[in-house]
């Protein structure tokens, strides 16, 4: 198991994270968004596994999928709860978390294309800075960080903010995996991702239930 070489999957991994990050930016149905996030974590796992032992890299995949599960369950229950116990002043939730016009989607795609160009121009410098990292890893990481930050800048929706933060952190984790192989850090980073997902879940649910007083 330890000897599995993921280097040949580096390019597919980078392409996968690019496509999923792009879809996260433009899709409006929360179920598809979460499906995209779970696929994105496969790409992140591939890119991290190039540097890390398989078992440690698997923590990224497992913690990522747990994040998706936590967010999915919270969204499902919050959509249900907001329909049943409609709180005054708060719109009941639907499967679509936002409603983009066609021009908004075009704007987002153009902005993403610009980020991709910036990433392509920055990647050689970053790969020189971080010894031992593959070019595809740098591309994948910077794409995730760039599109994550773009996503953060374009939204105030709770689910989207959490997804964007998870995306940005995933990008960072790919680069950081090349410079730090520590079980404690892997655990803490997984804890941070899970914590963000749980906070996201809490925030969806908190708005639709009555307070404890």
């Amino acid at each position, binding site marked *: 198991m330890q000897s599995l070489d993921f280097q040949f999957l580096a390019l597919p991994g980078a392409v996968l994270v690019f496509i999923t990050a792009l879809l996260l930016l433009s899709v409006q149905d929360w179920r598809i968004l979460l499906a995209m996030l779970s696929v994105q974590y496969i790409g992140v796992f591939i890119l991290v596994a190039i540097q890390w032992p398989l078992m440690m890299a698997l923590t990224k995949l497992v913690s990522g999928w747990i994040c998706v599960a936590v967010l999915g369950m919270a969204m499902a229950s919050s959509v249900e709860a907001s329909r049943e116990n409609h709180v005054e*002043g708060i719109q009941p939730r639907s499967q679509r978390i936002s409603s983009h016009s066609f021009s908004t989607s075009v704007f987002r795609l153009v902005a993403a294309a610009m980020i991709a160009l910036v990433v392509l121009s920055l990647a050689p410098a970053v790969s020189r800075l971080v010894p031992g990292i593959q070019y595809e890893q740098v591309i994948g990481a910077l794409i995730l960080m760039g599109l994550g930050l773009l996503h953060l800048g374009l939204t105030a929706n709770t689910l989207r903010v959490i997804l964007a933060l998870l995306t940005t952190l995933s990008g960072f984790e790919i680069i950081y995996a090349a410079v730090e192989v520590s079980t404690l850090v892997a655990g803490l980073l997984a804890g*941070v991702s899970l914590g963000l997902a749980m906070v996201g879940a809490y925030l969806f649910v908190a708005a639709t239930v009555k*307070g404890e007083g």
Partner: protein
Amino acid sequence: MNAPLVWIVLPGVYAAILFLMRRWGRAVVVMGILVSILLAWLAWTEPIGETLILGSLRIKLDDTLFVLGRRFVLRPSDAPVLTMIYLGAAFWFGGATVARAGSFFVPIGLAIAALLTAAIAVEPFLYAALLIELVTIISIPLISPLGRPVGRGVLRYLTFQTLAMPLILFTGWILAGVEASPADSSLVLHGNILLALGFAFLLAIFPFHTWVPMLAAESHPFVAAFIFYILSLGITFLGIGFLERYLWLRTSSNSYALLQFVGMLMVVLGGLWAAFQVHLGRILGYAVLMETGLSLLTVSIGPAGELLPPSLEILFSSMLPRGLAFGIWALALTTLAAYGDGDGEGETEERLSFDRMRGKGRKFPIAVGLLMMANLSLAGFPLLAGFPVRLALWNALAQKSVLAAVVALLGSVGLLTGCLRSLAILTAGGDEVPWTMTEQWSERIMFFLGGLALLLVGILPQWFLPALGRMTQIYLSSHP
């Protein structure tokens, strides 16, 4: 037995137990206060690394705990910090019932104290960034309670604190490279930029400051002030960790010049914005920003050299009056927000606006009086807790840079203006409106104790500040 187990693991476990018991509100508060005081007392009286004698039982308190190949180390010199954290926690828990801070406040507050202690103890110290991020995450249920829509300030707080973590972690890796090859100027530049950005996010430095006033306006004032206070304490020690670890950083006069510039910017902006706000919560938020600026100015006094700057003594000493003032200010805001228009419902964000607060001082004179005292104390008004430390800071700043001292004074003038405008609004109304005291007895007692503390520390600083000075000496004794 080891020290990290006592000051990190045990309070963490205890916090989890209190969380499960949260339906018994008052009991949880009392237990939280007792355990915090006990931990603070233990930190102050039982030297780490020595044998603890409990009757016939002898326990050696080791300083190291190994977790997954890394170490959590609490040295004897960390005792003052532990005392400060847990005594601070006990102080805030003391106001929790009167402030109606919610059933999550004490359990999560204690967990935050344990995590901050872990952040101070973890080695390599850079991992503290991860633990501070965990503090941010667990604080969300406090500032965004059940049954309320998510505010924009909450999301920004979460976003900015989360973005800081990768920057700080990556900076650590770059700075290790700088140590290996200090002549590599591009590496130094990258390291400096990332470090500055990371701390700008963490400390809410302009232009990443927006979440502080937003959070102060839309969250429970007491909870928001607690988060501002405890988080700034943790981040301060992370910053000192950087100065301690990297010699080139503390010997570089450019680092201190940058700190001074950013500190001046924060003080001016905080003071100016506080002067022109029309919302009592937002004024508190801008006072927090001003305090951040003053902390940076304090460290910037330096001087740059091989040792940690002696000005840290002023920084440590400022924690007591700052905590007191924030706590009392927030408690007064909570009282005004809770009873402001009599029905106890509605959003804090609207309820503390000047429009809604007009003339409320005639119904809540004690709360308004203490609000003014806390505000004036932070502005450095004589005879109040903030004055002795502020005077020391102004004095030290004036010797280094007259401009910085003038800017610090300007910030105080801004805050003072905000205070006077608040007073004018709160006491507005014709003579036909009678003055009554509507505060509950528990609130009156808390305000009396708070006011007394503000006055005592201000009039008799020699009773309190030397102890803080000694704590700084102990802390600095085993650090370079």
